């Protein structure tokens, strides 16, 4: 596969500089506009489609509870990022952002992750109007106490709902076990206690540090009137100044608590998750940009080789009746943490988890099957091309790429650099039993 072709254009488009790339596989075009304030716009033109998509990526997630701006350190309660997302969306006398967008026929949504907050919407008509509303809401949210008081019970109800969800409980329990100090160990929404502590000042402090144009990126996909959008953005950003907030994290031990964590719940199907802490990426030695993405993609291909239904280990565990179709795995790889979570429902979760740990250690000793690794590369390349068939999917993937300074089109070329041997070298921690931990949800006995 060839690298994407890049053309640098120097023309000034309403205080934006333009960079155009063409994907050699599909001939799709991506235009990158960067405003002098640092505000980034990625445009993926898709003529012939009705829906138009926009996503605004804010580089602020649940783990950024302590941060420094201009020498001043601030700490906010767990769940602040998620609370702020709710406030940007929540109702006001005109129905809030969601209401105003739905009045235009737009379908809007948002989520908070450990590392970022994403606001996105798509619409058929009135796209520019929707975009204006969107930017207004994110760049000028109403964060006074009255709004926070209205939103708090809704968030507490959301947290209650997750407490009944065995998958969420199992996952949060796993992260708690994997990390000692890192805020990734906390649920993204926080706890009832932390949510009750959040004040208007906390949210304003987060907003004034991370929700500034210079920190944000906007991804647009569809049949768009680019110049009109840029003109409007240019006017909005005329006075924007670069702002930099930096999250602060404590150092984190390299290994997890390695005792299995078990919780009994009112479930019919027990479940398990095996967690493996990647000691390569920790707050004390973070990884960023292309290097991070290269590692992330290579490790994901390696885990596809080791754990996907095409692998010998999956086949073996399935045949033994320890796993079923619910089995899944995810390698999270962010600038200051990385771990694998793998599991699902099982009639015998303890045995399934133990068999998976033994199987992974054995597979690591055997080395990756180079043929299967190449097959997984093919599958990943195919996934990339298929993703471009969907306006929303390609938009969301690009919006996530923005955090790493990468284009969607960079992926195929990244795969060219990968092979089974180097991938396996990166996964040395698989051979260390101390890297593993496990979270189990069992059936509650009837009382």
């Amino acid at each position, binding site marked *: 596969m060839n690298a994407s072709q890049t053309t640098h254009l120097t023309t000034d488009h309403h205080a934006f500089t333009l960079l155009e790339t063409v994907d050699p596989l599909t001939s799709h075009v991506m235009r990158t506009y960067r405003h002098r304030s640092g505000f980034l716009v990625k445009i993926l033109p898709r003529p012939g489609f009705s829906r138009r998509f926009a996503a605004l990526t804010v580089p602020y997630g649940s783990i950024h509870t302590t941060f420094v701006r201009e020498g001043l350190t601030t700490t906010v309660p767990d769940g602040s990022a998620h609370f702020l997302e709710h406030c940007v969306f929540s109702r006001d006398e005109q129905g809030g952002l969601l209401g105003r967008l739905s009045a235009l026929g737009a379908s809007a949504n948002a989520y908070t992750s450990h590392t970022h907050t994403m606001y996105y919407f798509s619409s058929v008509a009135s796209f520019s109007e929707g975009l204006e509303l969107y930017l207004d809401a994110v760049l000028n949210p109403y964060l006074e106490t009255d709004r926070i008081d209205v939103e708090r019970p809704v968030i507490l109800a959301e947290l209650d709902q997750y407490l009944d969800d065995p998958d969420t409980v199992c996952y949060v329990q796993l992260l708690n076990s994997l990390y000692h100090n890192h805020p990734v160990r906390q649920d993204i929404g926080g706890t009832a206690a932390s949510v009750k502590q959040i004040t208007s000042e906390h949210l304003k402090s987060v907003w004034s540090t991370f929700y500034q144009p210079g920190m944000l990126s906007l991804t647009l996909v569809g049949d768009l009137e680019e110049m009109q959008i840029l003109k409007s953005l240019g006017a909005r950003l005329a006075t924007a100044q670069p702002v930099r907030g930096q999250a602060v994290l404590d150092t984190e031990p390299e290994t997890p608590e390695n005792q299995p964590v078990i919780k009994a719940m009112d479930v019919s199907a027990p479940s398990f998750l095996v967690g493996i802490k990647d000691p390569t990426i920790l707050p004390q030695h973070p990884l960023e940009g292309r290097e991070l993405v290269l590692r992330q993609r290579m490790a994901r291909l390696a885990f596809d080789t080791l754990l996907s239904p095409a692998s010998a280990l999956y*086949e073996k565990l399935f045949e033994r*009746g320890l796993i079923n179709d619910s089995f899944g795995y995810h390698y999270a790889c962010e600038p200051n943490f990385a771990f694998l979570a793998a599991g699902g429902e099982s009639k015998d979760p303890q045995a399934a988890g133990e068999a998976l740990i033994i199987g992974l250690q054995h597979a690591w000793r055997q080395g990756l099957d180079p043929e299967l690794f190449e097959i997984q590369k093919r599958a990943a390349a195919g996934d990339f091309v298929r993703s471009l068939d969907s306006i929303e999917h390609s938009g969301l993937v690009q919006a996530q790429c923005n955090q790493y300074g990468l284009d969607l089109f960079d992926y195929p070329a990244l795969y060219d650099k990968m092979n089974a041997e180097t991938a396996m070298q990166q996964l040395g921690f698989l051979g260390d039993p101390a890297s593993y931990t496990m979270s189990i949800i069992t059936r509650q006995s009837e009382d």
Partner: protein
Amino acid sequence: MNVFYPNDTWDLTVHRGVALGFFDGVHRGHQDLIRTLVYLCEQRHLRPTVFTFPEHPLVTISPEGQFPGYLSTLEQRMQRIADTGIQEVFLQDFTTAFAALPPLEFLNSILKDHLQARLIVVGNDYRFGYEGEGDLVLLRAWAAEHQIEVVIVPEVRLYGEKVSSSRIRRLIAAGDTQIAASCLGLPFQMTGHVVEGKKLGRKLGFPTANMAISPDLAVPAFGVYVTRTRVGNRMYESITNIGIRPTIQDSAPKPNIESFLFDADLDLYSQEITVEFLYRLRPEVIFDSLLELAEQVEIDLLQARDYHRTAEHGYEITRINGTPVRVLKTTRFAQATAILTFRLKITRAEASLFSMLSRLLTASCQRYPTRSSLSAALDSLYGASIENEVSKDGDLLSLHFAVNALMNWTNQTSPFAAALDVLFDLLEKPDFDQDGHFTEAMFAAERDGLRMELLSRQNDKAKFALDQCMNRLCGDQPAGLRASGDLVTLETIQREDLTAAYRRLITDLDFQVSIAGNLSNDLIEHLFERVRQLRTNTPVLPEAHEAYRPVYLLRPGAFSAQALDNKNLRESKQVEQARICLALTGLKPYFSHQSIIDTVMNSMLGGDVHSLLFDVVREQMGLAYSVYSVNSRYLSTLLVIAGVAPDRVDEALAAILEQVNNLKTGTFSPRLFERAVTLVESTIRTIPDDLDSLLAHMMNGVTLGRTVSIHDSLSLLESVTIEQIIERAGHLNVQNSYILTAKGETL
């Protein structure tokens, strides 16, 4: 469906539901009317019957030559009526004696005495008896006196006007075959035999088939049309000229219909063909020379080909051993998808059986005897996927086997074509053991897998509450069974049962194939071959004892909610959050064109983020994080689901019911209605943005028994009014409620 004439022997002991009308073309309005009758007859255990005439009354009562031509032959009309599920048609000659019958005599002697009608379904402009003196007022009064139910079915409106046969005749005469097709629910068709022509087309390089036209049929305005032409079971893309051929005609002008079939080299002489008119390219023109004509024909051919390539209209391209194959051509997507669907009426025993079978069939086959070898084969096809899904539409169980892959890769291979072969290999050649059954290991693994799937549904407390509510709504009716089966039946399944089920699947079950993407003719032909191989052993359907058999034998059945003594049930479990589930019955039957009103109403109540439930119960009152409603179309029911704090259940329940009441009384802002319409419109408009949505739209049309294009859907939406919403909401009835509370909370 059997057809009876006045002198035929007629069963006078059977109680019937009767639809009245001429039903020329059996357009969308007729379909709503007749299908309403069939649906109500199923609920009331009556025999659904149509009373109609072989010739249009206007032919008898108007001067000769006044009737503008039929939209369908009698044969086509009877077939389309049979397709709705009608069991009997009574064909009464519209003689002068019949025309002179006084209204009450018609009702007494024919409907009551001869047809034994217990239910009468008519349109809102129905008139009857001598000179049309009988009207709905008379009909209702007479019916009330004789305890006969009368149902008036509302008209269907499209593009600002009522759908009617006379409107469709005008549209066809004006050459607007697109709107005519919208009103009819399918393209206008002309059937006839191919006759000898002047063979001018052959000399110009495009041999055409000339069709003899029945003089009774409506004829489209002269000109050139994009068409499809059916020859036997096979549909071909085509272009058709209708006219007197003014440039080349050398004798007295007589209308001629000639079609050129793309990518077909057939000798059609004397064969019966059916031409479907899609779109008029241009009117008939006199050219100065044959050269000019030939140049224009080249342009016409290019435009017609382009239309076929890009219009994204799904259609049935052929039937192979009774299996319909539908194609949807599009050039906008890199990937392609094919879905093979097997269907049957659901029963408790078979749901688990076929659910397990669908898992086994997608786990391995002779060519790929392990899960890992199959997965690796698909991954190597650039991440192709094969998935199985069991789903339920009312009382129909569907087993879907879907393959998705990139149509082409840069090395000139087609991952999709290869993946399609893998799917057929899975279905054709399962990996049976020496004893002729699925292997013990596979059997055990898939039973474990299905058991866990069924158990895990109970992990989700919202789904658990929904299931309890649905059980109470449906009772023992098939519509209440879960598609993936149940744990008790699962444990009784033996390997032999699965083998027998597999044999039934590939030979007997209703089977349909749908495919979408940038499809080449070679790929389509290859698909036909694989379908033919798979269905080799399918027995030919025995000769029907009826005169007409529906094209689609399986349709979702009618649903009646179960009457309950205790409508409201509360239970407790160890949960952090209480769950409320309400079943609100009273929606239109699933096939009705009026169901668009229910879609908007659902959006207003709880289907979208601007809705009453979301805005009031969640955002204003802070009673719930998750509160929404869904339209269970085949059960004509809205389901409201909410997760609330255990100590605020009653407050939340009252708030939900208040919002339902606000809909009924019209206590809502017009802005809510406008937003709902805008959001529904947006949902409709974005269907073509996704290949799977496009394909699902086509397949849903088949299940619903009516296909509505994106434009037609938007037109139907445009006709919805606030008054209709309030009227429909007035029919909503809380059939039952299920509340799951936390242990320790007061019940």
